[in-house]
């Protein structure tokens, strides 16, 4: 309506076109406020040594990346979203772009949902080439898959209702705290004297905190911050971190050459500020300060 009036007033077709284009550009920017468009990098001849997995992927022009769909701020995909969003995803985009593949093109990059339980099998079977799914580095996991990083260090905290007077896990001894079935978080809850209750996804667990069935939910602080931001005024994050999780990138143990490449891309993102920018953009809104980039582990020789 407004558009047609403006056009009639101006009486010039050209100005109408200009306006339409302007509006279109505006709408485009508005719909994409979560993720950043990362451009595919030019892969020069000889950038990746022949025979390496990176060379194969760059040659094929397609890649499968395992990510989470239910962790706002880290890896999240709404029912109507084309692309998942979050910090894990932004780091994944940097890696994918380095292979000369457009990270926004879902026909080239498949963001496969991996739940905690199936990350190792997916890497072992080659269902995915990389895993960036709030994947904690542990010695046990390093026996079956390759892990490098960390690109992020976090710890377990508590998410409680806004009016709760719980201040730390000490206040919840013997009480029920929910998390995701089969996750490390459940084990930590039990170790700290509370009782872990497992649900299939974090969003279901949040629901149980909201309806009062459990006193708190616990997992990595950054995930909780994402939910606190989603339910502002109803939920808050409390307590010191009572575990340390080093979040890294998973790759197939049969492709050890990927380690140096991943570390290289991460190092570059630390140096040129794209890591900090990705952090600010995805986890910043929930009130987490941008930390110093973590120190990367050395690759196995």
């Amino acid at each position, binding site marked *: 309506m407004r558009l047609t009036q403006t056009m009639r007033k101006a009486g010039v077709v050209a100005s109408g076109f200009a306006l339409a284009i302007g509006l279109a550009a505006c709408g485009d920017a508005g719909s994409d406020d979560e993720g950043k468009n990362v451009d595919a990098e030019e892969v020069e001849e000889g950038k990746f040594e022949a025979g390496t997995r990176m060379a194969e992927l760059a040659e094929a022009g397609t890649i499968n990346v395992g990510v989470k769909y239910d962790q706002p701020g880290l890896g999240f995909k709404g029912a109507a979203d084309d692309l998942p969003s979050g910090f894990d995803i932004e780091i994944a985009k940097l890696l994918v772009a380095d292979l000369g593949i457009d990270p926004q093109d879902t026909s080239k990059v498949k963001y496969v949902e991996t739940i905690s339980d199936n990350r190792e099998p997916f890497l072992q079977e080659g269902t995915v080439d990389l895993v960036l799914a709030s994947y904690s580095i542990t010695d046990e996991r390093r026996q079956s898959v390759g892990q490098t990083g960390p690109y992020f260090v976090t710890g377990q905290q508590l998410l409680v209702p806004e009016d709760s007077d719980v201040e730390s896990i000490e206040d919840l001894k013997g009480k029920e705290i929910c998390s995701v079935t089969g996750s490390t978080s459940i084990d930590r809850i039990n170790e700290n004297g509370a009782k872990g209750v*497992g649900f299939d996804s974090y969003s279901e667990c949040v629901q149980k905190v909201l309806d009062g069935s459990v006193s708190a939910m616990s997992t990595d602080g950054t995930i909780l911050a994402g939910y606190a931001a989603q339910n502002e005024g109803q939920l808050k994050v409390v307590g010191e971190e009572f575990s340390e999780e080093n979040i890294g990138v998973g790759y197939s143990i049969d492709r050890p050459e990927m380690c140096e490449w991943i570390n290289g891309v991460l190092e570059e993102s630390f140096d040129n500020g794209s890591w900090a920018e990705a952090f600010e953009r995805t986890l910043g809104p929930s009130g987490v300060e941008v930390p110093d980039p973590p120190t990367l582990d050395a690759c196995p020789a």
Partner: protein
Amino acid sequence: MRAVLDNFDAYLQAFGYTLFLFLVAGVLSMLLGTVLAAMRVGPVAVLRVVGTTYVTLVRNTPLVIVFAFFSFAAPDLGIRFGWLDVHIGPFDFTTFFGAAVVSLSLYTSAFVCEALRAGVNAVSLGQAEAARALGLPFAGVMREVVLPQAFRASIPPMASVQIALIKNTSVAAVFGVAEAVSQMRSFNNEFGTQRYGIALAFAIGYVLVVEVVSYFANRAERRYRVAT
């Protein structure tokens, strides 16, 4: 396998929850299923319609949806199990256990009803007619003549229904009960290199539990077989 052997108490406790779910839901589903079967074969049209509607509705709904209803929709409607707070040794029976038992019982009772109804159909019509001719009312006909024979005829399908219930308890894993599957996923998460051993250990656990139930069902079937 090492992971399971080193944490055998956790393994046993997990199957403990599985057994509790099975025993409580098993008894409740038998009771409710019997009432439903009586409603469906009874002379009161309203009860027949109610019974048939219940069975049709519940039997055609996936168990996960029944669980999801009692976990997420029911609390909003005011149906909560917050009053349940029983602790026996290392076992906690709270709101999540309550929701799981109710889901499993309501779901399984539809199948119990149908197994029993098949048993009722196996009792020849002459038996019921003879009982009525003796002057027994409907309740008496059912209690004294039809249901005892129907129960005996329906032992094999009833055993299948209860075995299905044992395996269905695994759905509770993702609704807050720390039963076998939930523990298995925990082991898998922590000891990713021993997945095959862990899967095998839990498969053996389920097979053992099911075999015990089948054994008693077989014994019962032989002992109470209806003479033909």
